[in-house]
């Protein structure tokens, strides 16, 4: 079992050559509140990395810093070899095309149908596709998430689980290399939650993505994680495999896993 920060730094340097995301000494505050304090972690190519932690521990802030929706106060974030803090608007836009972000709320565009929601990023990122290829691609991803019949529905006609699936379809339609999932199973019943977890694994297998999954749902972590990082008070508290966490004697870890 690896424990706190020092071991995670060692792992980060060990896996540097295989890393698609490297974060070093990341700090982020909102006013007086320090949300992230000296976070160091890496995402290895092809793995599902689950980031666990209590609500308010800075999990969502962490992945928003990765796509620069929030600017870090200190630290370095390298994504696919690019330091995101030094990228200009065009460079950032190009890098974002390789990253899929599944928002906690789904963030489907209310005024558009499911088809238009999927077309939106596709027409902007894959500019070389013609109408027929776009249609084929949309149907293919909708079949992958099991909602091919929802093509002409609007978001308000969809259930919570369906919205998450469509949102996932919108994210994978542009073939991202990295997936960032922000609380993918929050607010869903256990059956739908398991379906979403299975979809995350399917996406990893079929599209060969590397993913960071932010969650406080142990069931989801269990189903999807290749490796887990636990955040506490804005720092990496523990890093390891699912079994390491299950066998941990630390009361804080136990309160999650038992």
């Amino acid at each position, binding site marked *: 079992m690896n424990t706190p920060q020092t071991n995670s730094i060692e792992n980060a340097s060990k896996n540097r050559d295989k890393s698609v995301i490297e974060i070093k000494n990341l700090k982020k505050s909102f006013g007086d509140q320090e949300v992230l304090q000296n976070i160091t972690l890496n995402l290895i190519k092809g793995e599902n990395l689950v980031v666990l932690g209590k609500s308010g521990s800075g999990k969502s802030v962490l992945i*928003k810093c990765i796509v620069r929706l929030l600017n870090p106060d200190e630290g370095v974030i390298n994504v696919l070899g690019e330091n995101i803090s030094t990228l200009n608007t065009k460079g950032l836009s190009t890098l974002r095309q390789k990253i899929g972000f599944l928002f906690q709320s789904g963030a489907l565009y209310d005024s558009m149908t499911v088809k238009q929601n999927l077309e939106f*990023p596709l027409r902007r990122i894959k500019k070389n596709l013609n109408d027929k290829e776009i249609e084929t691609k949309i149907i293919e991803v909708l079949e992958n998430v099991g909602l091919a019949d929802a093509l002409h529905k609007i978001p308000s006609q969809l259930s919570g689980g369906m919205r998450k699936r469509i949102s996932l379809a919108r994210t994978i339609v542009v073939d991202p290399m990295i997936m960032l999932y922000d609380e993918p199973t929050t607010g869903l019943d256990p059956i739908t939650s398991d379906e979403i977890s299975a979809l995350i694994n399917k996406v990893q297998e079929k599209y060969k993505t590397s993913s960071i999954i932010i969650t406080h749902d142990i069931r989801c972590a269990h189903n999807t994680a290749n490796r887990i990082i636990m955040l506490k008070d804005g720092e990496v508290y523990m890093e390891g495999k699912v079994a390491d966490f299950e066998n941990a004697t630390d009361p804080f870890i136990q309160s999650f896993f038992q």
Partner: protein
Amino acid sequence: MKENNPVLKAKGFATRQSLRISEKTIAKKTDANNYLADVADVFLFLSRIFKETFSRDFEFKEFLRQCFQIGYKTLPLISIIGAIIGLVLTIQSRPVLVNFGAVTMLPGMVAVSLIREMGPVITALICAGKIGSGMGAELGSMKVTEQIDAMEVSSTNPIRFLVVTRVIAATLMIPLLILYADALGIFGSWIGANIKGDVSFVLFFSQAFGHVHFMDLFPAVIKSFFFGAVIGVVGCYKGYNAGRGTESVGVAANSAVVLASLLVIIVDMIAVQITDMLM
């Protein structure tokens, strides 16, 4: 004994007073800093709109959709209000003009007042309510539900897609709505004139437009473009900068209406002063 010492009492009083004054000074400085930050924010927002307006990838399809939303969907409301303003203005003015034996001036007077002032200002205020609040609420809820963030991470510039299209559509559609309201106002006036009198449609309109000159129409059209731009920018700014909670959607919509209405009146005042100087 110490408690009754007048020197210590005075010293304590002076310390408390100076603390109060410094707290007030700090509070005022914070207010001033916040105000300056807000002003800087508005200018930054305007510069981003300006920059994106002239970018190569203009979202033409979304612009047409916004023209439809702003122009066509506001048409029924503007039709009713335009006709009623003309009708009421005629019914209220007629008795006074009859007393002075100047009833033949009625079509011209109504036309000039509608075209120069009443039509543009009232239509702009109605648009500030309907379109400004709509933009504030729509963009505000998009912000709260992370749709704007989703747009940003999917490599789409939200200012270009959401804001520029709405601001340009409002700038172009509101002058058209104002001209339409003016025309319907004069039509309403003709109906009003026929309630107690008998004037033919052709005579009424020829008398009305006989009194309208180029310098009545031109400044009114120019200022209506500014009304449109103000409504679009304020609605988008308030929505785009809404807070994170659902309450902020209501706040964004409400403050968009209030600020847009206020700015419409201020722009009108400036426009009238400029027109007056030029004439």
